[in-house]
């Protein structure tokens, strides 16, 4: 137990880093993912193909490999990012965006066809149909899957520890020389750090879901 108190500053710093990394990556992934979802349902076939290719490629690549490219591949092309934090952030954004895209697209497909048809009957062009009628409803129905993507993102951010970002999981590797008894406490402390983010997220999602549900 005392090992936790001794290393509390380190743990808190790791926790903060995990939170910052996850939140920033989430914002980026939501933006990129929404754009990709828009591409995937757009009237232009090449744009649909582009969205599809991106999603299929990224979904089938391990996140560790994406991290690798950001951290070690880009410097080979003289496109190095300012620090490992940025490599980790970019890797998480690019990877998570594919899953955000898929979640939103499934939401778009779940909106009853009558909604889009009614909007079209009112003379709305594609941009308005999507932006003002379909997407607002789609986002509400996909709050649970998006919540799962967020939770997975928080857990995935742990891979940054292997790329010189001192977030929560890095605390465990840094203190790996501790005794077995101390390691149990450190492991539990790190796990608790993740639970503090993921468990309330789960509760918040189910509350939001009920409040924002579209009655049909």
């Amino acid at each position, binding site marked *: 137990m005392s090992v936790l108190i001794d290393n509390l500053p380190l743990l808190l710093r790791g926790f903060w880093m995990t939170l910052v990394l996850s939140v920033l990556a989430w914002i980026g992934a939501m933006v990129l993912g929404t754009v990709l979802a828009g591409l995937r349902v*757009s009237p232009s076939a090449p744009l649909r193909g*582009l969205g599809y290719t991106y999603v299929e490629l990224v979904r089938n690549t391990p996140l560790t490999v994406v991290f690798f*490219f950001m951290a070690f591949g880009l410097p080979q092309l003289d496109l190095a990012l300012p620090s490992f934090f940025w490599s980790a952030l970019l890797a998480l954004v690019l990877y998570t965006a594919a899953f955000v895209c898929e979640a939103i697209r499934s939401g778009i497909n779940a909106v009853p066809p009558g909604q889009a048809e009614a909007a079209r009957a009112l003379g709305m062009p594609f941009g308005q149909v999507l932006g003002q009628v379909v997407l607002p409803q789609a986002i509400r129905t996909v709050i649970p899957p998006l919540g799962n993507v967020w939770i997975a993102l928080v*857990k995935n951010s742990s891979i940054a520890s292997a790329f010189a970002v001192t977030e929560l999981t890095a605390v465990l590797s840094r203190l790996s020389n501790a005794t077995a008894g101390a390691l149990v406490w450190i492991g539990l402390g790190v796990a608790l750090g*993740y639970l503090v983010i993921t468990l309330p*997220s789960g509760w918040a999602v189910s509350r939001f879901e009920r409040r924002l549900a579209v009655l049909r």
Partner: protein
Amino acid sequence: MSSLLYDIPGPKARARNRMLTAVGALVVAGLVALAVWRLAVNDQLDPDRWAVLFDARTEVPQALLRALGRTLQVAVIGMVLATVLGALLAIGRLSDRRWISRPVTVVVEFFRAVPLLLLILFSFIFIPAIGTPISPFAALLLGLVLYNMSVLAEIFRSGILSVDRGQWEAGYALGLRKSQLMATVLLPQAVRRMLPVLIAQLVVLLKDTSLGYIVTYSELLRTARGLVEFFGNTYSFQFYVAAAVIYIVVNLLISSIARLVERRTRKDGKARAAGPIGLPDETTPVVVPGGGPDRGL
């Protein structure tokens, strides 16, 4: 479905679509050009650099193939163990006895809510600390099994619960005990419906084996890194690309098998009569603190 979002394009809309397509194509072409230019400037497109990947004399193709073998080995063993344990945990969680279902729930929820890398690292660091040596393979396998058995347990549980109520009632009416009902009626139907999700989970597991890199298990990624160290930085880009391509090809293969199985089960009259598949996916989203079995994430 997407065609509902826009009218059949008239002359104006066609012109606008063409313009949008052109803009999109320009952006993509710009990105590709940037990539090619950076690659060319750094001599990465030099055929000699890529030839090393296919030259058997350099032992590179062999090394990559062996690495793929090790990746598949840990993935397959992990999948089998996780499936068996996951089914047991699912049954345990559905048990009527509180002293079974409560602890099982805690175990499942805990391991799902914790990053897989933390489980792998902890196994790798903690088990030697209590005096038992552990190989990187075993640490990776242990982490993968602990995590995936919990994810699969939830998949199985939702599968069992999605079996039509009438099946349960019919089973009880025939005088089956709960264990008999589970084993002979519910699990077979659940597994059948869950097969596409199970195969999709294999893709996730296969991708996650790349975490073995961090605990020095020489799977694909670690091998690529090792090759880079051996051959020098000249080839680093090529080796990473090769590793990525192998992952993508294998995963696309497994994904297409999953789709095939999904189509098969959907065509199957019995499965259709039993109602829509209760997959924990886009149509019936279930939010769970652990993050849920989101396909592929």
